[in-house]
C-alpha cells in the first residue's frame, strides 16, 4: 500500500479499519542469493537498496529479536556529515544526501528534520581545527559555516559563554545536520524491502556459519539451515560474538554508550549542540524532551547498561555549558552496545572467507550512517567491488597502515 495524504484522509473517514500490516512474516526459504544477518537499521537499509537499486530481490534478513531491536532503537537520532578525513567525509556526505531524499524514496514518514548541528569551540587552536574540518567538508560537497561568538549568541543565547574553563568563542555549524525519528527509519526500510520481495525473518538467531573449504555456503539458524550465495553480517554491537562463530577475531571491542532524555520542556534548543571538550551533546525531541549523551563508559561490555560515574560526568558537562538545564528532571536513560573499532571508523568489506561479508565497527556513530552503510554494503554485495565512497573501510587497513583515525589517538578503542 502506498501512503499518501489522501489515504490518511480516506482511512480517517472509514474508521482507520483499512490499514494492513506493514510487512509479511514469512518462514525462511531453504536458499537465497543473499542472507543478511541482522535486522537493524543497517541490515534493513542494505536489503532495501539491494532490492531497489541493484535488482537483487532473492534476499532474506534474519534477525535474532524483532526488527530494529538494536541500536537503531536506542540512539540519539543525530544526522550530520562533519568529518575530516578523506576516507570518511565523502561517505557521510553521501549518507546525508540519502537522508534528504529518504522519505520520498521509501514513502514513509521518518521525520527527517534538518535543524542543524553546532560544534562549540573554546580557543584558537580548536577554532583553527574547525576551520580545517569545515573546509574538508566543503570540498566533499557538504555545508559548513564557521560562526563567531555573536553568531552563536543569536542562535543559543542561554549558553554559558564566559565559562571559566571553557569560554565559548566560536563554533562549526552544519545547517543540513539534524535529527530523524529513528524507529521509523527501520520500519520504512523494512517495509520498502518487504514490498520488493525481501523476506524479513524475525526471532531467528544465527547460531553458526556453514563454511566449507574456505567458502561460506550459508548460515545455521534457530529456524534451521539457510543456504546462501552470499552471507552479509551486519550486527554492530554484537560483531565480536557473531564473527567468532566464523572463527574470526576483529579489530573491535564492545563498549556501552549511555543516553538520556529529560522531561518534556517548551521548545528551547533549535538544533543539535555539541560540547566536544567536555563531551556532552544535546538536542530537543519534537515531544520536548532534551535528548543528550556523552562519552562511552570505557570498558568492554555487552550489558546494555552503564554505570553512574558516566551519568555524573555527562550531567556535569551539560551543566558546564548550559546551566539552564539544571532544574530539568531526567526522565529515562539507557545504554547501547557499540562496536568500538581500533581507529574509530567502520568496516564495510569482504572477509578472508569467500561469500562472507562484514559490516560493523560503527562506534557510536552508526545511526547517521544508516542510509550510506546500506547503500555501500548493497553495492559491495551486488557488484563485489566497494562503492567509491567506502573504499577505505577495509578490515585489513591496520595491517597496511591505512587507519582512518579521526581523533588521532591510536589503537585504543575507549578513547575514540
Amino acid at each position, binding site marked *: 500500500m502506498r501512503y499518501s495524504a489522501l489515504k490518511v484522509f480516506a482511512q480517517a473517514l472509514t474508521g482507520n479499519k483499512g490499514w494492513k500490516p506493514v510487512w509479511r512474516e514469512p518462514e525462511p526459504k531453504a536458499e537465497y542469493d543473499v542472507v543478511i544477518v541482522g535486522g537493524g537499521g543497517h541490515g534493513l537499509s542494505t536489503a532495501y537498496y539491494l532490492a531497489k537499486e541493484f535488482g537483487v530481490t532473492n534476499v532474506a534478513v534474519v534477525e535474532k529479536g524483532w526488527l530494529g531491536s538494536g541500536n537503531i532503537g536506542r540512539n540519539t537520532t543525530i544526522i550530520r556529515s562533519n568529518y575530516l578525513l578523506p576516507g570518511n567525509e565523502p561517505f557521510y556526505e553521501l549518507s546525508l544526501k540519502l537522508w534528504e531524499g529518504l522519505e520520498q524514496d521509501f514513502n514513509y514518514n521518518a521525520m527527517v528534520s534538518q535543524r542543524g548541528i553546532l560544534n562549540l569551540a573554546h580557543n584558537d587552536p580548536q577554532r583553527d581545527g574547525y576551520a580545517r574540518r569545515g573546509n574538508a567538508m566543503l570540498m566533499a560537497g557538504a555545508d559548513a559555516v564557521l560562526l563567531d561568538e555573536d553568531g552563536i549568541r543569536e542562535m543559543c543565547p542561554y549558553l554559558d559563554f564566559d565559562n571559566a574553563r571553557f569560554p565559548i568563542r566560536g563554533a562549526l555549524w552544519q545547517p543540513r545536520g539534524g535529527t530523524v525519528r529513528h524507529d521509523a527509519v527501520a520500519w520504512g526500510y523494512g517495509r520498502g524491502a518487504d514490498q520488493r520481495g525481501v523476506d524479513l525473518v524475525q526471532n531467528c538467531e544465527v547460531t553458526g556459519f556453514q563454511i566449507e573449504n574456505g567458502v561460506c555456503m550459508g548460515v545455521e539458524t534457530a529456524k534451521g539451515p539457510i543456504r546462501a550465495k552470499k552471507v552479509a553480517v551486519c550486527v554492530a554491537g*554484537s560483531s*565480536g*560474538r557473531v564473527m*567468532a562463530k566464523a572463527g574470526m*577475531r*576483529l*579489530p*573491535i*571491542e*564492545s563498549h556501552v554508550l549511555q543516553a538520556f532524555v529529560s522531561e518534556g520542556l517548551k521548545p528551547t534548543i533549535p538544533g543539535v549542540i555539541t560540547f566536544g571538550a567536555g563531551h556532552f551533546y544535546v538536542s530537543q525531541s519534537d515531544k520536548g524532551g532534551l535528548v543528550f549523551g556523552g562519552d562511552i563508559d*570505557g*570498558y*568492554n*561490555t*555487552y*550489558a546494555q547498561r552503564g*554505570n553512574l*560515574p558516566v551519568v555524573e560526568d555527562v550531567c556535569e558537562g551539560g551543566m558546564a555549558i548550559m546551566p539552564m538545564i539544571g532544574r530539568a528532571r531526567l526522565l529515562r536513560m539507557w545504554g547501547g552496545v557499540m562496536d568500538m573499532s*581500533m581507529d574509530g571508523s567502520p568496516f564495510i568489506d569482504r572477509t578472508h572467507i569467500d561469500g562472507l561479508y562484514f559490516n560493523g565497527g560503527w562506534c557510536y556513530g552508526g545511526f547517521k550512517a544508516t542510509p550510506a552503510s546500506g547503500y555501500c554494503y548493497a553495492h559491495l554485495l551486488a557488484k563485489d567491488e566497494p562503492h567509491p565512497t567506502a573504499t577505505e573501510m577495509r578490515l585489513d587497513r*591496520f*595491517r597496511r597502515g591505512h587507519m582512518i583515525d579521526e581523533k588521532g589517538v591510536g*589503537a*585504543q*578503542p*575507549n578513547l575514540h
Partner: protein
Amino acid sequence: MIINHPLLGPRDASEFTYLGDASLIDRPDWQTDNAQELFHEYLYLRDNPAGEHRELWFHEQGDRSWLVVTRSTLTHEITKVELARDVAISRRRDE
C-alpha cells in the same frame, strides 16, 4: 563497579583507567620471523568475548599499580583481581 584491589581493598572503578584485554601483557618477540604478523594481532585484534574477560586496569588515582581484573562483560561482576606484575612474572615462569 567496585574493584577489590589486592593491596588497598575495595576501590571505586572511577579511580582507575582502563587499558583493555590482558593479552596486552604478552608482547610478541620483535626478532621472530613473523613479528609483523604477530604485532598486527597483538595491537589490533581482540577476542572481545561476551562473558569472562581478563583485562588491565591502572590505578591512576591510587597507588598507580596495574591490575588484571577478571570481570564478566555480560553482568559487570568482578570475580578476581590480581597485580599485573604477579601475572606477568608467573607467565614468564611458565615459559
